[in-house]
C-alpha cells in the first residue's frame, strides 16, 4: 500500500514536470544568450542569463505598444461583457417570461458556433461600418473590442446565471419590502453578491480577448500600430532564419500575465466552472 502510493506520487510529480517543461523551456530560451540559442547542443539550463532578447523585442520592435493594445482590448472586453452579462443573467433568473428557455438555449448554441467561419461576413461588416463610424472599422482596436465582447457574452451569461441563481430570492424580497427600488436591488444587493462570479467570468473573457489570433490577423491588416501581441509575435519568424530568442521572449511576455491571473484565481475558477457545468 505504502509503496504503491509512493510510486503514484512519483508518477504524478514526473507528469507535472513534463507538463510544465515547455513553459520552462520558453522562459529559459528567452533569457539564454544568442550563442546558446543557436547552438546544436541545447542545454536545459544556462549560466549566462541575458535580457538581450527582451531588449530586442521591447526596444527595437516596440513590443510595449502591442502589449498595451492587447491590455486595452482585453480590459474593455472584460468590463463591457461583464456588465452586459450581469444584466442579462438577472433578467434570465429573476424573471419569468415567454421565450425565456428559448433565449437560454440559444446562448448555449451560440457557444458552439464556429466563430472562425464568421470572420468572413464580419470582415465585410467591419469594413462597411468603418466607413460610417471610423473608430470601429478595419485596422482599429475598436473592431476587436466589439467582436470579442460579442463572442464572450454567451458564455459569460451562461456562467453568471448560475451565480445569480445561487443568491436566495428572499434577499431581494426583503430589500423591496424595505422600500428599495429595482435599481437599488440590482446594484446594491445583487451586484456585490455576484462579484466572485464576475471575477471568474472576467478571467474567461480576458483570456479569450488576450489570446485572440484570428481576428487580429483578419481585421488589422495595414495599421501596424494597432496590432496586438499574437500577430506582432509572428514578425520574428523569418524566411531565412527564425529569431528564436525573440520569439520565446515575446511568447513569455504574452504568457506571464495570463499565467499569473490563472494561478491566482485557480480555486475560484474551478468553482465557477463547476457552476457553469452543473447549471
Amino acid at each position: 500500500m505504502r509503496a504503491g502510493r509512493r510510486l503514484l506520487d512519483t508518477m504524478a510529480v514526473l507528469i507535472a514536470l513534463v507538463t510544465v517543461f515547455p513553459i520552462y523551456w520558453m522562459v529559459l530560451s528567452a533569457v539564454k544568450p544568442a550563442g546558446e540559442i543557436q547552438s546544436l547542443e541545447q542545454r536545459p539550463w544556462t549560466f549566462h542569463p541575458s535580457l538581450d532578447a527582451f531588449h530586442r523585442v521591447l526596444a527595437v520592435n516596440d513590443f510595449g505598444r502591442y502589449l498595451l493594445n492587447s491590455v486595452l482590448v482585453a480590459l474593455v472586453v472584460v468590463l463591457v461583457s461583464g456588465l452586459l452579462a450581469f444584466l442579462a443573467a438577472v433578467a434570465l433568473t429573476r424573471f419569468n417570461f415567454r421565450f425565456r428557455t428559448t433565449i437560454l438555449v440559444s446562448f448555449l448554441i451560440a457557444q458552439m458556433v464556429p466563430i472562425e467561419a464568421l470572420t468572413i461576413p464580419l470582415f465585410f461588416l467591419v469594413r462597411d461600418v468603418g466607413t460610417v463610424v471610423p473608430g470601429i472599422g478595419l485596422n482599429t482596436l475598436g473592431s476587436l473590442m466589439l467582436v470579442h465582447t460579442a463572442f464572450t457574452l454567451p458564455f459569460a451569461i451562461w456562467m453568471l446565471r448560475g451565480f445569480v441563481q445561487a443568491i436566495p430570492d428572499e434577499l431581494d424580497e426583503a430589500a423591496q419590502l424595505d422600500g428599495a427600488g429595482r435599481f437599488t436591488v440590482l446594484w446594491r444587493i445583487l451586484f456585490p453578491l455576484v462579484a466572485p462570479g464576475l471575477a471568474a467570468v472576467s478571467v474567461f473573457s480576458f483570456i479569450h480577448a488576450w489570446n485572440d489570433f484570428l481576428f487580429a490577423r483578419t481585421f488589422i491588416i495595414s495599421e501596424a500600430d494597432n496590432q496586438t501581441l499574437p500577430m506582432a509575435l509572428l514578425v520574428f519568424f523569418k524566411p531565412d532564419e527564425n529569431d528564436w530568442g525573440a520569439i520565446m521572449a515575446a511568447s513569455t511576455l504574452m504568457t506571464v500575465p495570463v499565467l499569473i491571473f490563472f494561478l491566482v484565481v485557480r480555486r475560484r475558477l474551478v468553482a465557477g466552472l463547476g457552476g457553469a457545468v452543473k447549471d
Partner: protein
Amino acid sequence: MSISKKGTRAPLWLLLPAAVVLGGLFLYPMYQLGLLSVLDFTQAQVSGGRPASFVGAENYTRLFADPQFWSVLGATVLFAAACVVATLAVGAGLAVLLTRISRVPRLLLSVAAMAAWAVPAVSGSTTWMFLFDTDLGFVNQLFGIEGFNWMYDRYTAFALVGAVVVWASFPFVMVTLYAGIEAIPKSVLEAASLDGANAWRAFWQIMVPILRPVLAIVVIQSIIWDFKVFTQIYVMTRGGGLAGQNLTLNVYAYQQAFASSEYSRGAAIGVVMMLILLAVTVLYLRTLRRSGEQL
C-alpha cells in the same frame, strides 16, 4: 422570481444591451454567411467592380465535387477524433490519479496543469515549434534525430499539432472530472473496495455511471473545441502545411476566403461546418435534458 411582477418590461430592458450586441455581431453575420454562400462573391465583387450575382447551390455543388474538400473533411474528423480521445484518456487518467496521491504531488500536478491551460495558443504553438525544431530543437537533439523536420510529413505534422492541442486542453477535462469524482460519496467507493473491486473496475463500474452527465459535457465540449482548432494549425503549419496537407475545415475556409479571395466558397465551407457542429450541439442538449437539468 422576486423582483418580477406579471407583465413587467424590466427583463426586456435588462436583456436589450446584450441582445443588440449579439444580434449585430452574431445573428446578422450568420445570416450574411448563409447569403454569401449562395452568391458569386470573389475579388471582383469585393473591389466593387462587379455586382454579386445569385448562383444558388452552385458553390456547394462545386465544393462537393472537389476531392480536396473531402480530403480536408476526412482529416478534420480524424484529427478531432484523435485529439478528443487522447485528451479524455489523459484527462480522465490524471483525474483518477489525483484522487490517489498525497497532498503535495496533487498540488504540483494541478498547478502544472493549470499553467499549461493558461498558456495562450500562439505562445504554446511557438514554444513547441522551437522544442521540435529541425536543428535547434531540444527534442531532436535529445533523441539524436537532428535534421528531421516534423512538418514535412503530413502525419508527424498533425501529430505534433495534436500534441499541443491535447497539452492545452487535458487540464479542463482533468479538473472537471476530478471535481466530479470528489463529489462522489466516499462510502460508495469504500464499499466497492471492500467488495474487492480493483481501481480499474471501480473506475468503470462506479465512477463512470455516476459521472455520466459530467462526462457527456466534457466529451461534447472537447469535440466542439477540437473540431474548431485554428490557431495551432495556422501558426505551426504556416497556414495549412506543405501543399495544404494539414488543412482542417476551419483553416481551409479561412484560406479560401482570405488567401484566395474565394469568399463564397469559404462561406459555403463555413456553413457546412456550422451544420456539423449544430448536430453535435443538439446531441449535447438532449444529453443535458436527459440528465434532468432544468433550464
